[in-house]
């Protein structure tokens, strides 16, 4: 997991059916700018990562199954290094190189 200081390499995982929106692949390793916009000095946050995922990784046009009103839609848990993102500052969390970000859609079947 080495990357230039301008870029971050993170592991992104999808579970609970969200992988269907991302080429049916559960685990993705992605590299994205460490600052957003990349020319700025503003660190890339989870909010930026989510937009990046929509623009660069999602092939399915049904964006609203992942994002609603500019953030991850209700019913999706975001876990940063295996902890609920509420413990880490939610979408303002600044992504670190090597982070593991998991998006879990809640299931309702029983």
């Amino acid at each position: 997991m080495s990357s230039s200081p301008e870029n971050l390499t993170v592991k992104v995982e999808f579970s609970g059916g969200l992988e269907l929106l991302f080429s049916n692949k559960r685990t993705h390793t992605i590299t994205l700018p460490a600052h957003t916009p990349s020319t700025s000095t503003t660190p890339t946050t989870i909010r930026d990562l989510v937009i990046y995922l929509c623009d660069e990784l999602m092939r399915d046009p049904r964006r609203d199954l992942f994002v609603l009103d500019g953030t991850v839609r209700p019913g999706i848990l975001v876990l940063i290094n295996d902890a609920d993102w509420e413990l880490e500052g939610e979408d303002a969390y600044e992504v670190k190189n090597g982070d593991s970000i998991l998006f879990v859609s809640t299931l309702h079947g029983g």
Partner: protein
Amino acid sequence: MIAISHTLIRQSVSTAFSKPSMSLDQTVESLKRQIASHESLLEDLRRQLAEAQFNQPPPGAQESQEQTFQASDDPLAHDLSHGIAEDYMNEVFAALSRPQGDHSPPNRWPLSQDEYKRYGRQLIMPEIGLQGQLRLKNASVLIIGAGGLGCPAAAYLVGAGVGTLGLVDEDVVEHSNLHRQILHSTARVGMSKVDSALVSLQSLNPNVNLVPHHGRLTPETAISTVQPYDIVLDCTDTPASRYLISDTCVLLGKPLVSASALRIDGQLMVLNNPPRSAGDPTGGPCYRCIFPKPPPPESVVTCGDGGILGPVVGTMGVLQALEAIKVLTRASTSENEQPVTEPPTLLIFSAYANPMFRSIRLRARKPKCAACSAHATVTPEALNSGSLDYVQFCGMIDPVNLLSPDERISAENYAKLRSEVNPYTGMEPAKDSHVLVDVREKVQFELCSIDGSVNIPFADVSGFPIPQPTASAAIPDDSHWVHELKNIPDKPIFVVCRRGNDSQVVVRKLKQLGLDNDGQRWIGDIKGGLIAWREKIDSDFPEYY
């Protein structure tokens, strides 16, 4: 009653064959009628049997009436009655009588002989032991939903010897339940799930007091239904019921074991654990803390639509039973100390991932939670009055109504179009006079399809970008479905799916892609999809849902 029915059957069967003058048609008709009548009789008998088995008093129920401590030749018993300090004697008596349920035979041991034998393998484990078993025996568990989660959960809890188990469900057993809902059986298809489950559970362990709750849990009934129980298992399958159950558990201070499953994935959480009062931040989070807003209804997939692998939902149900046993048997280290609870986690199970399980740390109670914080708006009054509308809170999917009537054709009319001779030309319809596009997923298309249909899965169509008017359409290659449909510009396109919803979306999309040649080619869908096709035209078409 049963004897009478047997006679009836013998009589009527012999009648069918004893009239040689009867024509063959009449015999067939008469036999059909009799089979139908006996089938209904049989169903009635099954119901009666289930009821009788359910009402049967568990063994030992009668002996318990005369439950006294008998002096015997036992030297210890002699000492107890004749020469031992009274307070010690009382203590021993209390220890001996406390664990005895209503229907245990007189016994000088805390459990009956049957119970020692039955639970021996778990009794010898330090995690359970005698005290754990007695805690289970004094505990009552409510399982809401007697389906894929509820069946295995109930089986293990009844097997482990909980004192009372309540079951809530409003559905009847269907064939499509049997691959995963292990308490039900082929013979009990059509019976209520609660009754069917009780028949199995009763025969598994007659020591458990089983309580049926027929019908759906509603805001008006939730509090009175849940009140008598110590712990609740949410084994339901809709967001609305999950919020209702969680709110009720918070209001009543009950821990909640919540699980769900779909396709190859499962999730498990123990909520409101420990179940402290609203506003106490040391209590465990509730469902609303984790999911303050319900998911958009169009993102909610049911097992009927998405599919479910039996052992996946079974695993989750078994884990619910395990968590319930852990909560019920956990010991306080001393009199004054609260039992130690694990920090809240979400367990994620993915059957085809490696590793299959992972555990995620969850947040604590949300300081502004609508149910469990000091600012809670969910109150018993609001719940009882029915002013909380959970179905509305979670929303409903509006029926898909994208197309105008002239863009749709009924299954009957489509069948005519396929088979009828043209009244003007006298020609049989050519098989390739039109294109029938089936937009179900490939795996469903391979199960069964209408002869001559081609499969273009919904996801492929909806995921296909609409070309900008300025740019030329960038279509990957000539074999692509868009090309294939373009190459036959004269043939009308009929779109079919399972129910007639996705097909409407696809018709819209095909027109947006310009495949209707500015209205020159007809593109429309079959109303009601393959379900209507099966009901109206081809009753042999497999019913896999």
